């Protein structure tokens, strides 16, 4: 099931790549993506929300000597991210119907490969496998921005690639270290990258001292994910990448790829290094708050709509990080919800910005004005999405932001209060932009009477419709979504110091991992670590 | 000293020294000359130096091993093929630049 979901897009990429005519590409890609989404909905039916265990797992040894396996599984934390990914793809393809006019085969094939990579990293339960998917996602994104991007696309892609790569390499080192540690201390004395086995490690941690294994591993992993999220101060690749990326690239980048970072914190960093996470939570709360306020303030003064939305992403992801490192049920639940919200509402914002860009080929706020008179439907949709983005109650944004603020306030009054200030700033930058673009007198791009701007067409409305529906659905009935994640989140928050996950296969049987047959590498002598309180030699 | 005597005194090491001298000349030619044709000739020289070693080792092996002699044929075949390819390249370069200086090969970088 999971393998199918992960690899069907690859098949779709192949199909798209061999189509004889370019004009068939878009419809085919759309249908395939939509089918893929419908297929992935079956996950909801098969998923059992009453247990925190990993479900629908698939386990095959891959490189047995190193304990690397092909191990997929899903739980309440990743379930919605998988569905968000499959949901956004048809929307993106529909939204870029006319925006991508060259080499559309390659483009859509890249999108599908990207989807495989993203889905894979959400369901991979083996660190090496995760790393492979995590890195694989860079390649199609690199092409999407580099080939179909704007004028400074090469600069932006290089920046994007190098930033993320740098973090990932640190993570790779940490993964290798963890695998050796596992060999040293696990009872089987086998190397393993199986995340469920690694959860059992009790990596030594000394508070107040930086150079100890857990702290170093914690920061190595965090670096990779923080860059991906992106957190202040490693966020500067994001505005450039967004501005240069074509609309669908921006949507996928903001909608899903950023979540790979925050998901990484939740899946790997917090449960693997609980003491360090708790001890250094303030660092992330602090950077989260700075990100919220800084992103909002800088967004406020952007002259370019897309850059404004990009900085608003920095601000929103700051909320996500705060929620995660509040390390309580409210914060973590809010974070997961905010990841989905951000995918929906920022995705929608990028689509809308793309739609107006297609008409005027400009994103400069000062050149607009009075758009509400000319494009009323566009205005209404933009307004609804704006509301979601500034977290007005009854839209999805409110639920996430409220829970995050509640959680952060519980974790730290000081940071909580500052984060609430961000709520005000959020309204300021969005509404100010809205006012300048839509209200007032017609700006220079709007007032051309001979070629009045076309309001949204049927296709564009149809693309936005599901997003708008989701905005209200998630805002009014959050339980439809949260009930699937509840048990997993509570399990994580309550037992994070001794986090364990059982794994169930598709039939609901508990999976027992066989120890790989042949260890080929000697254990390291220098590592002294404990498992469940037992001293290793 | 009669010539036959001195010929009889020629041993393995003489051949090897000759081979080494030829090889060094070839190597220097490859490293220092700019003309592609000369460089190709120098390569031939190096190969032939090796051939001399092969034959000499074969001749002086205690059990009359003929592997070295056989190997020479391989080397000669390869050398011929290599000369063909090398000359083809040289011709192309000459056609384009009216000269066969080695530095024109930099243009292959694209």
């Amino acid at each position, binding site marked *: 099931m999971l393998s199918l979901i992960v690899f069907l897009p690859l098949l779709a990429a192949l199909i798209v790549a061999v189509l004889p005519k370019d004009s068939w590409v878009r419809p085919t890609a759309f249908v395939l993506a939509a089918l893929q989404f419908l297929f992935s909905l079956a996950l909801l039916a098969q998923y059992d929300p009453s247990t925190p265990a990993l479900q629908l797992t698939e386990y095959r040894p891959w490189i047995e000597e190193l304990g690397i396996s092909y191990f997929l599984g899903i739980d309440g934390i990743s379930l919605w991210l998988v569905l968000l990914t499959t949901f956004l793809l048809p929307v993106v393809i529909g939204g870029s119907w006319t925006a991508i006019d060259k080499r559309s085969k390659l483009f859509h094939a890249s999108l599908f490969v990207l989807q495989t990579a993203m889905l894979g990293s959400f369901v991979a339960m083996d660190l090496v496998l995760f790393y492979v998917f995590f890195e694989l996602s860079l390649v199609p994104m690199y092409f999407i921005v580099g080939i179909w991007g704007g004028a400074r696309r090469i600069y932006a892609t290089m920046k994007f690639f190098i930033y993320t790569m740098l973090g990932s390499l640190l993570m790779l080192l940490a993964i290798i270290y963890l695998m050796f540690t596992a060999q040293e201390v696990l009872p089987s004395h086998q190397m393993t990258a199986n995340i469920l086995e690694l959860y059992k490690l009790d990596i030594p941690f000394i508070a107040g001292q930086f150079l100890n294994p857990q702290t170093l591993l914690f920061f190595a992993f965090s670096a990779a994910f923080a860059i991906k999220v992106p957190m202040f101060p490693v966020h500067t690749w994001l505005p450039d990448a967004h501005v240069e990326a074509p609309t669908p690239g921006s949507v996928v980048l903001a909608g899903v790829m950023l979540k790979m970072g925050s998901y990484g914190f939740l899946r790997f960093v917090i449960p693997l290094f609980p003491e360090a996470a708790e001890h250094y939570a303030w660092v992330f709360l602090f950077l989260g708050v700075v990100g919220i306020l800084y992103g909002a303030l800088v967004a406020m*003064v952007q002259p370019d709509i897309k850059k404004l939305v990009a900085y608003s992403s920095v601000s929103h992801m700051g909320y996500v990080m705060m929620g995660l490192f509040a390390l309580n049920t409210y914060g973590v639940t809010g974070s997961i919800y905010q990841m989905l919200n951000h995918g929906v509402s920022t995705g929608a914002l990028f689509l809308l910005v793309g739609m107006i860009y297609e008409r005027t080929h400009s994103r400069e706020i000062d050149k607009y004005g009075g758009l509400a008179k000319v494009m009323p439907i566009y205005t209404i949709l933009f307004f609804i999405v704006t509301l979601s983005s500034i977290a007005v109650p009854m839209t999805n944004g409110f639920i996430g932001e409220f829970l995050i603020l509640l959680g952060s306030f519980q974790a730290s009054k000081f940071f909580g209060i500052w984060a609430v200030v961000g709520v005000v700033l959020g309204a300021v930058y969005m509404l100010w932009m809205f006012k300048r673009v839509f*209200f007032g007198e017609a700006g220079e791009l709007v007032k051309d009477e001979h070629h009045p701007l076309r309001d949204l067409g049927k296709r564009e409305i149809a693309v936005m419709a599901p997003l708008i529906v989701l905005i209200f659905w998630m805002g009014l009935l959050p339980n439809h979504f949260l009930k699937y994640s509840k048990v997993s989140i509570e399990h994580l928050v309550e037992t994070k110091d001794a986090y364990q996950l059982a794994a169930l296969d598709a039939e609901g049987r508990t999976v027992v991992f066989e120890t790989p047959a042949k260890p080929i590498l000697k254990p390291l002598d220098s590592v002294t670590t404990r498992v469940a309180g037992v001293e290793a030699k | 000293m009669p010539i036959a005597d001195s010929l009889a005194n020629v041993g393995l090491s003489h051949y090897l020294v000759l081979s080494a001298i030829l090889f060094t000349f070839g190597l220097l030619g490859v490293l220092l000359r700019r003309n592609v044709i000369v460089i190709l000739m120098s390569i031939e020289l190096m190969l032939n130096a090796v051939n001399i070693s092969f034959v000499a080792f074969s001749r002086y092996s205690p059990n009359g091993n003929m592997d070295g002699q056989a190997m020479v044929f391989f080397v000669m075949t390869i050398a011929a093929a290599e000369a063909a390819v090398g000359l083809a390249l040289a011709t192309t370069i000459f056609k384009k630049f009216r000269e066969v200086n080695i530095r024109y090969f930099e243009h292959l970088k694209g």
Partner: protein
Amino acid sequence: MNEKILFAVLLLAPVVGFLFNGFRWKSKNYMIAGSVATGAAGISFLSALLLVSKLFGEGAPKSVSAGFFDWILVGGLQVGASFVIDHISALMVLVVTGVGTLIHLFSVGYMSHDERPSKYFAYLNLFLFNMLLLILGDNLLLMFVGWEGVGLSSYLLIGFWFSDKEKAAAGMKAFVTNRIGDAGFLLGIFTLFFLLGTVNFSEIIAKVAGMSVETGWTGPLTLAGLFLFVGAAGKSAQIPLYVWLPDAMAGPTPVSALIHAATMVTAGVYMIVRLSPMFVLAPNALLIVAIVGAATAVMAATIGLAQFDIKKVLAYSTVSQLGFMFLACGVGAFGAAMFHLITHAFFKALMFLGSGSVIHAMHEEQDIRKMGGLKKYLPITHATFFVGWIAIIGIPPFAGFFSKDEILWFAFSSPLGGFPLWFAGVVGAACTAFYMTRLMALTFWAKPRFDEKHTHPHEAGPSMAIPLIILAVLSAVGGFMGIPHVIGEILPGHPGNWLEHWLEGSIAKPEGFGHGSKVMEWALMGISVSVASLSALTAYNFYVVDPERPAKFVASLPKLHNLIYNKYFVDEIYFAKIINPIVGGSRALWAFVDVNFIDRGTFIVGDFVKGIGSTARTLQNGNLQQYAMYIAIAVAAIFLYLLEAPKRLLEIFGG
């Protein structure tokens, strides 16, 4: 009828109206749009009546409630979409749906020439729905939903004529200022939630019942109270967040009547009254509420003295009256606050609608210097406005007298009050009487100052007259629901204070509240009424009898007039000291931190790596012979190593 169904009808009728008009927003048919919207509001009013009627009679329940669905269930936070009508929200829901329906009706006439009447009515219904959520929600979070929702509808309606940049800016200003308040509200919710573990009103009240009065400034209840008051100050336009309300007058006038006078802006008062059992435990928070309320009452009233825009005068009057309500809350007279909220809703809605009628008749002219003598052209408007005028300046037995007097009395007699608060209230009342009389005089009395040949003001149709008349009646008799005991004693039949009785048990009172000598009460009542009458007479003298005098008087105090006329330069100060520095600072952040610091920093690292790379690159320059040289040297080196050359050389030369 089933309560749940009634609640559903009450809440959903405006939603249906909103959707109906929202989906045909292009339609210019104001009759259809208006009747649907007014009908929806009317249905809400009827269901509210039916629901409230269940609270009357022997053995009636203290409240009726209905739960619909679970909303947020995370950890200890269990919030459902549940609604309740108790003795407090009953008053509020009737005022909102009742006055709301009248204003919807008025709008049908007022918006008849507008280009987008359907959109307007859709927004109006949306507002009503959110207001109902705010009033009826049985927990703080649901109240917050309505709280932000009314802010949103207010934003949409203020910026209804968005092509005008100033109006759009006013909408944004309202939303952002409200957001500041909302942030405080959120913090208040958090503090209460982590203290009590619930956000449900009845549970909060039950849980604080066992707690003792907090004395310091940093106790959780005091903090929660102060945070919540920030929210209230934002929504109800108190110092320092009042600046949005005068600008909000950019919206259509019925909107000003409904949202910015009668209902939404009183939400802050309503919230504090709802949580009165918590607030009485935090007297320091109440002290701040009282001081801010009194200060706002005086400051806004003085600004009102020198304004020439008819709606601006009413707007500052609203701010000032809201200050009175907070003053009442602050001294623990929550009942009086509620009372004034209701009467104010009547007479201020009346006056705003009256001003709407004037503006409509004068073709969108709002400057009272260009009016005058409208009495003969607009008799109904004048008569009803007249009632509103005597009601607001507090002449007995009109509504404003009873409620304002009760506030002043408690400001003096309450253990939390005192002479300074009472005095501030009296000053506010005197200013109110003055500027309201000035408004009456300049608008309706004296000689016309507009071109009578070209402008022919006349009354609009019945849809605008009926609401005015009903509201005038309510303004006249509305005060009888809360006749103070000292007056009730001497009246025939000894009517009791019905409102006090009704709210008994629903609201809390601070300790030692409600004592004071009757003589004192009579004396204060006399003082306040005579001060108000005197002030009104002076104004009459200034603006009707001797129209030259105001100009002379102003000329004698140029600096003071300038200060007041320019609203104490508060907006300018906010811009210069807060907003511009933030915007400038943000530009600096972007330029220096993002571009110059972070990016340049990474470039420096990048250049360093690049430098190493380009040094290494010279080794691989494409020169074949150089490559061959490397090979030769390497081979030679390997040979030397394998032959152990260094050792041999040592053997040969070292001996």
